[in-house]
């Protein structure tokens, strides 16, 4: 059976590789559209400074893009290598968006990125602009399909369990795609990428403005980033709220963890601004509350209420008891698919199959499960509150800080005097790490808050992992850590170096022209 420490190490490895991958993805999502915006101005006005901007930021984009692609390879295969049972149990549903992502989005993005880099001399200006837009569209469509897949893990819509194949199967692709969680999460994540890129461009531009280098490029970049960023930040906050609202219905345990809500309270519920949750005592040791706000935030009304951990645990225990006969019946069906009595028993209890699996961790023969084991499994159904609670607050606080920053940035840049506000420019440089931190915190809220499930309410994490030996897991984690550490050092070095070097002067660039003459074409690769 599953060794718990192997499951824990598999989780650690997935978290490390996913969080690492997610350092590079948001910048790609946003930067591609910023490049498109800059190049649009170039094509409209034909001012060469905008071409220089598109090429300079494009260079930084590519340094980041390479690591995003490289670490994305790991993600595509890690479900199979380390989450074998998960992959076979939900592959019928989960595999589809991943494959569609490759077909529809990643091919487009990757083919076009080659032309974006090498095509400056070979494509007409309008064609090249179209290529840049396709890169942006492709990378964001990639995010769409990945988040459709992720939303299935959060809220398994459009799927059912098929005892004949012992796995979950697709019931409706449109339901999977138009899952509310998928819709809100895609937009939230995609434009969080826009914010990341805007902060990055604004910060690097501020660095130049402080040093009076490349002022013309930096002023224009800062202006575009400020406008891009202020709109995107407002969008991220709106969608973040929508996501909370949707999640409150689909994943009450995640919401309880995010808000440190141990006891179910009457409406209007107060919001825990700061609290120190204790998983062991199931209470907060010290908290600062704001009245009314939680009801407003999660139910958008003053008389709404959501269940706390106490009620959720009680519900889970009941569902576990109801799920046990489903697991028993399934075991009989596995040996004899034609057993109609077992099928009838399974049908009567199938809604709680996942909860039956939850207790199987402690009682491999579920029919022998004791009340104490059921209580233990019910306690498991609540995610680790403190890290989810704090990550959520960090994400929200950083989001609000970025909104304030961008509002200020817009005021200064629209007055065209940001280049004289050195204190503000310094803040802008220091803002660069902020969106990255917020992105990572967001991942922690979404995925740690989903525990103990890989597919919410259907498949517990403890049985999803591959049955590797401890040695294999230690080997692979050491390998990933060593490789990824080396990569980030190289990437940061090249990024800082490229920023210090700055853009290539305009006059040293070859002229752009639509070159359709094959005799000349070879002259310019």
């Amino acid at each position: 059976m599953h060794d718990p420490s192997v499951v824990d190490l598999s989780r650690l490895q997935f978290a490390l590789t996913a969080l690492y991958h997610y350092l590079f993805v948001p910048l790609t999502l946003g930067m591609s559209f910023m490049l498109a915006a800059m190049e649009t101005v170039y094509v409209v006005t034909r001012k060469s400074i905008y071409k220089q901007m598109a090429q300079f930021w494009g260079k930084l984009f590519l340094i980041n893009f390479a690591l995003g692609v490289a670490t994305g390879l790991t993600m595509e295969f890690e479900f199979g290598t380390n989450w074998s049972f998960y992959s076979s149990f939900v592959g019928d549903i989960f595999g589809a968006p991943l494959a569609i992502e490759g077909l529809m989005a990643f091919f487009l993005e990757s083919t076009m990125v080659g032309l974006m880099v090498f095509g400056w001399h070979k494509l007409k200006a309008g064609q090249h602009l179209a290529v840049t837009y396709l890169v942006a569209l492709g990378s964001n469509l990639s995010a769409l399909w990945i988040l459709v897949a992720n939303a299935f893990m959060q809220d398994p819509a459009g799927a059912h369990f098929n005892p004949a194949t012992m796995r979950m199967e697709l019931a409706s692709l449109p339901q999977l795609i138009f899952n509310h969680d998928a819709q809100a999460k895609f937009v939230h994540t995609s434009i969080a990428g826009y914010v990341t890129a805007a902060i990055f461009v604004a910060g690097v531009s501020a660095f130049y403005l402080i040093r009076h280098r490349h002022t013309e490029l930096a002023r224009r970049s800062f202006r575009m980033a400020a406008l891009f960023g202020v709109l995107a930040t407002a969008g991220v906050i709106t969608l973040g709220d929508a996501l909370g609202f949707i999640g409150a219905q689909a994943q009450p345990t995640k919401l309880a963890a995010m808000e440190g809500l141990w006891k179910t309270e009457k409406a209007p519920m107060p919001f825990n601004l700061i609290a120190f949750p204790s998983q062991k005592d199931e209470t907060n040791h010290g908290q600062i509350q704001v009245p009314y706000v939680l009801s407003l935030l999660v139910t958008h009304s003053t008389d709404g209420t959501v269940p706390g951990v106490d009620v959720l645990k009680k519900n889970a225990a009941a569902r576990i008891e109801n799920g046990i006969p489903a697991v028993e019946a399934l075991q009989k069906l596995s040996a004899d698919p034609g057993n109609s009595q077992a099928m009838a028993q399974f049908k009567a209890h199938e809604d709680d199959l996942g909860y039956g699996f939850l207790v199987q961790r402690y009682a491999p023969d579920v029919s022998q499960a004791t009340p104490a084991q059921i209580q233990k499994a019910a306690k498991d159904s609540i995610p680790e509150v403190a890290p989810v609670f704090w990550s959520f607050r960090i994400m929200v606080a950083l989001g609000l800080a970025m909104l304030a920053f961008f509002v200020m940035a817009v005021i200064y840049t629209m007055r065209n005097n940001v280049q004289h506000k050195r204190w503000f420019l310094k803040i802008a440089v220091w803002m660069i790490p902020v969106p990255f931190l917020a992105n990572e915190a967001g991942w922690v809220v979404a995925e740690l808050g989903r525990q103990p499930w890989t597919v919410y309410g259907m498949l517990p994490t403890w049985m999803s992992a591959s049955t590797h030996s401890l040695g294999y897991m230690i080997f692979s984690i050491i390998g990933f850590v060593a490789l990824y550490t080396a990569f980030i050092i190289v990437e940061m070095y090249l990024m800082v170096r490229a920023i210090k070097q700055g853009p290539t002067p305009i006059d040293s660039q070859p002229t752009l022209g639509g070159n359709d003459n094959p005799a000349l074409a070879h002259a310019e690769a």
Partner: protein
Amino acid sequence: MKTFLYFLLFMFLAVIVIAMAVILGDTGAWYFAWLIGTTMIVLIAAAGGMLLDAQDDHAAEEAAEREATAS
């Protein structure tokens, strides 16, 4: 001080806009909103860049005029 008041005003406006969007769209057609929103964000950023050029030209003209009247 004036800048700070502007900042407060715009922050207030931003919060109002976000609150309105929140109330309008609990489970909205977000994919559609993304299409519209992204187009808008890209175009407004592009327009902002062009506006900067216009502002520069305008400032240069004013400077030239001042010089002309001064001489």
